[in-house]
């Protein structure tokens, strides 16, 4: 296959890679993003909790991460406004049920203030707490309020960042796993072997998240190791929209922020538990004790009015961080200054933009040719999201239907997603049922795709000009349907009766 050459190649299309790719398009450089999956934003980003932290969990051992969290939280509003991404600064209540926990809250507040988080308040007036969060467990006696905590759509942020990067000239390649990297000292370029053939680049940014240590090892960099954590969560029915107003979180046994419940930017509620170590990236599964005894018990302790029967979906996410302190790794590989590791971790969603700027404005200039530091005059920071019928005012919707009747044809009943939106999502890069689901929310609602599933398969088949049997949930192997009466005969077998 023909060699594809770029100035900058970013490996990985999660929040980290997407943020870096967009920042790098501010230079007059050609940028490509290589993603191994069929869809972008479909690993760590998809399973994250969607909370933009205010910087409460600062740790003297992780200065870069602290900076990312504090600056990231402050920058997120403007970024999301530019990129037309859903974001709400709703604040967090970290609650205490007894005097010991109140003391722990006070200690947290002191250390956070020392490291620069000023916008923080301990509320011990219970009537005020119940006014702020009416369904809060009345046993809560105090809460630490950080108004800067926000919620965002993690995948929405990736779509926004990447579409904006593409508007500014970047290219995105999916199903493009990198299998090997060589440095050609003579040509002063990296050669990358991928599932889509060879690529070459002057600079490589390793934003491969949970796989970033393996990618770094391809160029002999073994200076950091990734450790994995997993987190089980549930989504509650939209009927409970408004029942929780803040990110409400309890303290764990160590006196640190633990299990939580919060609204999402889409109007449903999410509850989850603190992260637990795992050694298996495929540990993206839920467990009975995890969901029944942990997530649901904690959410009921925080907000007792939301019953377990309101769960529409349990899920689990695997998150990566650098082993040890969990400090971000944003630096060149030893002996290869132009191979830049960009490895975030916990708080990566909050920090991605601030840290991408750190890489592009502080690290990159120390390794780049002076000629490569020329900025583009025509960088456009803004991107417009596709229409979402559910969010439109009646007059806007009527206008849209008049322009394109497909926006009047509802496909997903629960989330009111139309044919027009699904077609537009495919135009913007969705290649699978999950790609459509995360871009449009078709199938994310309470019936979980029961009604729209066959119709989404049919639209993907029509728009991508592939047979329905070739439509997948999330890339190769995850086929949705098979042909009627094919020759794949089924042999009889032992029946356990």
């Amino acid at each position: 296959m023909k060699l594809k050459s770029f100035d900058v190649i970013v490996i990985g299309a999660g929040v980290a890679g997407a943020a870096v790719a967009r920042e790098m398009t501010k230079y007059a450089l050609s940028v490509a993003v290589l993603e191994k999956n069929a869809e972008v934003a479909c690993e760590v980003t998809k399973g994250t909790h969607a909370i933009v932290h205010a910087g409460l969990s600062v740790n003297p051992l992780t200065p870069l991460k602290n900076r990312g969290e504090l600056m990231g939280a402050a920058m997120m509003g403007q970024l999301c406004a530019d990129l037309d991404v859903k974001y709400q600064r709703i604040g967090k209540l970290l609650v205490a049920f007894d005097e010991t926990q109140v003391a722990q809250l006070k200690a947290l507040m002191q250390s956070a203030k020392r490291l620069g988080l000023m916008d923080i308040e301990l509320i011990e007036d219970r009537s005020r707490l119940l006014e702020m969060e009416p369904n809060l467990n009345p046993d809560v006696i105090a809460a630490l309020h950080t108004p800067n905590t926000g919620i965002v759509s993690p995948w929405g942020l990736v779509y926004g960042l990447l579409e904006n990067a593409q508007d500014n000239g970047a290219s995105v390649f999916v199903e493009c796993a990198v299998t090997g990297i060589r440095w050609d000292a003579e040509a002063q370029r990296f050669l990358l072997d991928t599932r889509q053939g060879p690529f070459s680049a002057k600079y490589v940014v390793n934003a491969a998240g949970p796989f970033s240590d393996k990618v770094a090892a391809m160029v002999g960099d073994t200076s950091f190791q990734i450790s994995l954590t997993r987190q089980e969560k549930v989504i509650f029915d939209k009927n409970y929209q408004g029942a929780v107003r803040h990110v409400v979180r309890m303290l764990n046994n160590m006196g640190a922020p633990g299990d939580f419940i919060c609204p999402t930017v889409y109007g449903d509620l999410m509850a989850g538990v603190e992260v637990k170590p795992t050694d298996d990236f495929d540990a993206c599964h839920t467990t009975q004790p995890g969901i029944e005894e942990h997530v649901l018990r904690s959410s009921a302790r925080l907000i007792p009015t939301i019953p377990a029967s309101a769960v529409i979906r349990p899920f689990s996410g695997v998150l990566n961080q650098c082993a040890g302190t969990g400090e971000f790794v944003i630096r060149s590989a030893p002996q290869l200054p132009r191979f830049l590791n960009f490895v975030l971790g916990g708080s990566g969603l909050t920090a991605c933009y601030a840290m991408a700027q750190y890489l592009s404005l502080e690290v990159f200039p120390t390794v780049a040719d002076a000629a490569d530091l020329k900025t583009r005059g025509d960088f456009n920071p803004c991107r417009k999201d596709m229409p979402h019928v559910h969010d439109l005012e009646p007059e806007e919707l009527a206008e849209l239907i008049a322009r394109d009747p497909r926006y009047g044809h509802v496909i997903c009943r629960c989330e009111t997603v139309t044919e027009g939106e699904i077609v537009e999502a495919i135009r913007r890069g969705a290649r699978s049922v999950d790609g459509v689901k995360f871009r449009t929310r078709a199938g994310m609602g309470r019936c979980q795709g029961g009604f729209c599933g066959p119709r989404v398969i049919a639209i993907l088949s029509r728009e991508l000009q592939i047979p329905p049997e070739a439509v997948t949930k999330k890339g190769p192997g995850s086929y949705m349907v098979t042909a009627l009466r094919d020759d794949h005969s089924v042999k009889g077998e032992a029946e356990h009766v």
Partner: protein
Amino acid sequence: MSKIITHETDLAIIGGGPAGLGAAIRAKASGVKNVLLIERSEELGGVLPQCIHNGFGLHYFKESLTGPAYTYKMLQDAQRAGVDFMTKTMAIRVDGENRITALNRDRLLEIRPKATILCMGCRERSFGALRIPGTRPAGIYTAGTAQRLINIEGKMPGKRVVILGSGDIGMIMARRLTLEGAKVLAVVEIMPFIGGLIRNEVQCLRDFHIPVYVSHTIKEVRGTDRIEKIVVTRVDQNRQYIPGTEIEFDADTLLISAGLIPENELSRMAGISMNAITGGPVVDNLWQTSTPGFFAGGNVVHVHDLADYASESAGMAAANAARYIDGDRSQDLDIEVAAGANIRYVVPNRISKLQETVSFYMRVTWPLADATVRIGDIYEKHFQFARPSEQIRIDLPTKELAHVHGQLIVSCEGERAV
């Protein structure tokens, strides 16, 4: 100029399944001048066009029909009666003042009827709501979605199938998949008895030698891209896993047939009071909801056994809506109907007006033998068997109720049969 079109009518019916069609036909027969039925799907009939098995219509048409044939006959009656239809039209908002916002490919509409009948039917309980542990690969469908894939789209959901839940659609799909060459490895039911009708248990499972596991559930789904394994376990009386009873199936597909949930998102927007057990609106014997001008019929109120009954109950709602539109709002009774011993629910929840008869629909909580259903102390009826899967209907002459005050408790006494 606003692009939102206002549409005035006497009666709006939301949903064009067996209930909506039954309501539309009866409304016209009761003299309502303008009847507008809106349906979000491409075709009328609700789920019936994909129900290619027979057994529909035995009560309503006195003959056994397939789902499409039942739809066709109802549609002909409705068209002859002069009902206005809008398909591919979805109501997205309803307010308590009887204003309905709906959209289709042509326009955004505001429909302003004098009365509305809610006939949105029900949806299937999803895999997510069951909180089954494991991964989330491709190959998980509700039984009804699989039915659509095979019977409408002409595609198979997979080849080696486990079905969780023994509701009627699940059993019907076990047979359908077998006929289409798939292997149904197991029907798994958490209760100690089958959830659907006996006739389906016999005709769909036993006649096709499909293995049934009652008092079992799924403990784990495995697979990254597509389902690879399904782990089934026996459960005790409290539905807790019994260790050591696991069975692993090399399945590529999981179908869920674990109950139907009335679709009442629009009803909630209209401020209508809901019944926590049925999942439907609280209704009186006129099928009126708590919000004036809103009636409800069919599966949106409570899940019926047969499409015929959904058509019939929505028809009763329509006859009363016709009187409401004519200005007859009289109510002469106020009796609360409540579920007593061994009764899961009873509909209607209230009796507000003396009419010729009141039809009580109820389900028992557990299979009972030698069962006696009592309505207060004014009526009782004996049944050899009463099963949760089989709805009990009792028509009571209203004159019996004339002397009842306050509350009427419906109960059932019998021997637990499982």
